[in-house]
């Protein structure tokens, strides 16, 4: 366990450098979803969800399996068609192609870490940083490593593994690489789908610290089942159940909510065990 922790100790200085000065650039960013609805044939996976997440508010999205958390992210990132509205600042995201939404500053990670396995760590980050490159740059070999990529390597603690193919990284390292890709992508709105699944305790803490740091300057939404992690790092929580928002508020408020208690069938003291064992009815 301890040998793993050294790999993930990140450098706060590099994080700040990568995130840039706490400027007004992202100051007023927020995600605002209104009446968001996703239907697959007759099945409504997400129904009439209203959700507002502001910058500086590290939001956790929880709920039993099948509650529609990932579908909600899929809708906002353009993977599945949805009705209603989802705005990042003044930009309406729904109805745009996935890559256009990404160019508007929306980034995400996936439940199963999806990195380009045959490419090296460096190449993965370089691609993530380069969606705005012109054709001439694309047709040339990479000369110097972009500064943002260099910083991201430090932030996610993979500088020593930069030339390793992403496919041979450990599970936690892949998730860190994905977070690094989000950072160099310069996303204003970040969705992280179970970022600490399969990580050691030390890795979780490092990830949480990093997310908190990012959350102060970007809009961050984290889907997570780990209640301990949630209690440690969440600024606010949105609970989803059967496609609806069941409750919203601070961790303490949500844990007191009778509807949440009922859904999780557990005492407020152990929602973690309940969340992982309870299946959606």
């Amino acid at each position, binding site marked *: 366990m301890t040998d793993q922790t050294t790999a993930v100790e990140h450098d706060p200085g590099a994080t700040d450098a990568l995130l840039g000065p706490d400027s007004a650039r992202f100051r007023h960013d927020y995600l605002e979803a209104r009446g968001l609805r996703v239907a697959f044939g007759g099945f409504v996976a997400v129904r009439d969800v209203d959700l507002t997440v502001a910058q500086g508010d590290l939001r956790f999205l929880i709920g039993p399996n099948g509650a529609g958390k990932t579908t909600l992210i899929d809708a906002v*990132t353009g*993977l599945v068609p949805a009705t209603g509205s989802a705005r990042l600042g003044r930009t309406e995201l729904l109805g745009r*192609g*996935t*890559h256009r939404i*990404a*160019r508007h500053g929306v*980034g*995400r990670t*996936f439940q199963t870490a*999806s*990195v*380009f*396995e*045959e*490419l*090296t760590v*460096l*190449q993965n980050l*370089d*691609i*993530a940083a*380069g*969606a*705005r*490159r012109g054709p001439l*740059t*694309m*047709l*040339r*070999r*990479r000369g110097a490593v972009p500064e943002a990529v260099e910083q991201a390597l430090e932030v996610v603690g993979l500088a020593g593994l*930069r*030339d*390793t*193919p992403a496919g*041979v990284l450990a599970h936690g390292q892949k998730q860190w690489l994905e977070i690094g*890709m989000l950072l160099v*992508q310069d996303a204003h709105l970040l969705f992280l789908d179970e970022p600490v699944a399969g990580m050691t305790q030390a890795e979780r803490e490092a990830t949480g610290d990093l997310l908190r740091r990012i959350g102060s300057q970007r809009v961050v939404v984290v889907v997570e089942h780990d209640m301990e992690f949630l209690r440690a790092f969440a600024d606010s929580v949105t609970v989803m159940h059967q496609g609806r928002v069941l409750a919203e508020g601070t961790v303490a408020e949500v844990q007191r909510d009778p509807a949440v208690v009922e859904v999780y069938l557990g005492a407020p003291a152990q929602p973690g065990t309940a969340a992982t064992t309870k299946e959606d009815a």
Partner: protein
Amino acid sequence: MTQRLTALLAPGRTRALAGFALAAVVLFAVAPVLLSPFRLGLLAKFLCLAMVAVGIGLAWGRGGLLTLGQGVYFGLGAYVMAMHLKLADAGPGGVPDFMSLYGTGEVPWWWEPMRSPVATVALVILVPALLAGVLGWAVFTRRVRGAYFAILSQALAAAFAILLVGQQQTTGGTNGLNGFRSFFGYDLADPVNQRMLYLVAAGVLLAMVLVARQLMVSRFGELLVAVRDAEDRVRFLGYDPAVAKTTVYVVAAVMAAVGGALFVPVVGIVSPADVGVVPSIGFLVGVAIGGRATLLGPVLGAIAVSWAQTSISEQFPSGWIYFQGALFVGVVAFLPGGLASLLGRRRRRGRGDAAPAPEEPETTAPPSPVPAGAHTGRTAQGRQP
């Protein structure tokens, strides 16, 4: 042959340059001296087919596009060139012989641009580039991929061949276009000009390999691998994968067309039998056997398979097709990375670890030096920087 192959298959920057220089020496100095004019002509034909393979290696090996219909682009380039040769032979304002025999004795309007040599060269590139661009964009933005794309491209090849057969008056039908006498003013019967054609083909092929190498080591090449392995993930980073796929499809189409255009004067005939489904798959076989994701695997594979086809057909006229089929099945089943992957595997074992090369995206061949004796197949030339 296998020794040269071993040396050439190793990329790495200096090694690639060395391999390139070696290939240039072999193609420009050794082969013209050693081979009889007949064999040299055959080699020129194989080089033209290898040009198609370079494009397939990029599109399929790097971009993951299983192009089963490269015969279409090969054929477009070939027919454009053949029309020009027929018109040039007929003289200014003349009518190609077969049109007087089968048709109205009038040259159709769409043949006219090919009277100009400059327009011909431009059209050899533009016609397939345009078709591949429009078709690729339409297909890839609709997210047609995998087997569906393969079937579509193959259907295109079948339709193209049928169209050519049906238009006997203007395309020569099943007979195709043949009986060319001159190539841009040079007498095709003259052995000196045949040798010149061979040298042109060799030079064009080497240039294409250089282009392919640049594309592979560039950021575009890295993006292409990313698109091949995880297209949706690329989309979430803000790229449109259709752009990368269409680009590589167009590049492959142009390479096939140039190969076709040079095939015509070298071989002296192009017919629907050279552009349909069977030759389209034939292009693929060499690429698969050589190693589709490597730089030189497709080229050497295509040349080797064509060479084997000729020699085996000379001995056992009907045996080749079975041999080819067995080889293809064997490679696909037991060696999906082609023969080049054998080299990569052996080299990795020799190095004692699996860490890949930092500089080179070529997955099968890390560039760092290997302990001497680990490779019996490498020649002395291959190891020199």
